[in-house]
């Protein structure tokens, strides 16, 4: 627990809160990417370089962009005329609290299972690569298959629309 930790946590929590309470959905998406960046910084402060950079590359570079595209393409981006905060912020708060409670419970329940380590283990990118290509190669391939299927599905959906408009 040091000063950088508190600064980064404050940034992350502020981003998350803003994502939940703001009215303009594009602002929410941008606030969410701030929260993603905060989480990436937390990973980096724990010396988890791979997780931190992958977080930035995937969540800010891909997921945030996807969210933003989805918002713009579904006409959700019209500027609200009154107020900055969302009218349903109470519901959002309740859902977020519920998710947080579940995650917190899961983390706390799994804590006794971990053995205390005197020093943080040094995990290089090479180790992660070896683990992914060795021990966890089956889950990796399953995820790859799933993503390929999803991509092909998306292309097929788009092709049908094109055929219909002809």
């Amino acid at each position: 627990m040091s000063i950088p930790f508190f600064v980064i946590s404050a940034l992350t929590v502020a981003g998350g809160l803003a994502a939940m309470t703001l009215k303009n959905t594009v602002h929410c998406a941008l606030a969410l990417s701030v929260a993603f960046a905060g989480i990436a910084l937390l990973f980096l402060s724990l010396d988890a370089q791979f997780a931190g950079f992958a977080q930035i590359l995937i969540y800010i570079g891909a997921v945030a962009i996807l969210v933003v595209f989805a918002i713009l393409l579904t006409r959700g981006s019209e500027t609200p005329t009154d107020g900055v905060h969302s009218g349903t912020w109470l519901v959002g708060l309740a859902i977020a609290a519920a998710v947080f409670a579940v995650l917190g419970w899961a983390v706390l329940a799994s804590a006794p299972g971990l053995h205390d380590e005197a020093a943080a283990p040094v995990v290089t990118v090479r180790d992660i690569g070896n683990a992914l290509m060795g021990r966890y190669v089956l889950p990796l391939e399953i995820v790859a298959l799933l993503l390929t299927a999803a991509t092909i599905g998306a292309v097929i959906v788009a092709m049908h629309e094109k055929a219909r408009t002809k």
Partner: protein
Amino acid sequence: MAATIDQIWIFFLHWLVGFLPAAWQHAAAVVLCVAAIIAVFCTLFALAVLMERKGLGRMQNRYGPNRVGIFGILQPVADGIKALIKEDVVPFRADAVVHFLAPVVLVVTVFMGYAVLPMGRHMVLVDMDAGLLFFFAMGAATELSVFMAGWSSRNKYSLLGAMRAIAQMISYEVVLLLASIAVVMIAGTLSLPKIVDAQASYSGIFPHWYVFTPWGLAGFLIFVIASTAETNRSPFDLPEGESEIVAGYFTEYSGFKFALFFLGEYVEMLAVAGLGTTLFLGGWSAPLSVLNVLPSWFWFFLKVMLWICFFIWLRGTLPRLRQDQLMNFAWKFALPFTLLNLVVTALWRILGPGWEQWVFCTAILAAAYVFMSLVGFRANRVGPRRYRYAE
């Protein structure tokens, strides 16, 4: 003597921080390095802009800027002063906060990429274990700033430009990453200084650059094309096609914010050129072993500037692509070809040194290239153009 000049900047840094108490030396060294990187690349940005304006001028049969200073060399200074003293106009309906943040985010993330680029022997700010990943993570963050700029301006040209830019950057980022992974597979590391070290040996006088292998050449060509698209340069400059959508996502920016976008774009170009140099062209190593008398940083910056000249030459030569051509090229040609290149790279590694790897890898890549271009030409019905005059 040559070794001293090679490391002159390091000696200079140590000499400079030597005046400080020991506790501050590390922090001072980091601050000095960052300041040096920003100063050097801002200067190179000015030089690149001048080269582009003069070079394009010559290609289009005109002089280019020639009024400020001798032969117009002070033109970038004049441009900078002009941008600083211009009024900063923010559209009435624009989202002021996001509109302000977009150029800042762009310039910051673009400069972060330089942290891992080795600019000479021992001249790297942070030798990260996952340097290449860091570079691409920072590149991905620039996409968000492009969106912020386009969306917050409340202008249809801006939004169209941003959508085009993001679609293009996402498509070509995949290709760029996959082309770089081939190098990682052979070098066995994500750290950029180690990738350069792996290439900095010579057989006879010729270097072991990755571009001189079949997979390296294929990866290099794909990397050049994808980096042109990634930096929104002509012929992939649809996001800011002046004749179609004014200036794309930064239409509504004026004064110094516009200058920041301009700076961000050129600095990104220099960064991508630096990365390509590091991955395929041996980074700071000299092109012939006898030329190692010249310092390593000289070779790095020379290669980067030659790359920029190539970009300028392309811009003066090629017409702009259409959106569908752009997407088709990325997804139907470049992506399958880079995937195949990965397989070929693996084959290269499995076969080991010998004549077999050269023959097989070259044959597979050449056959795939010929086959895919034939299929592509047939699908688009490309052939000799027949002119029909009034009959």
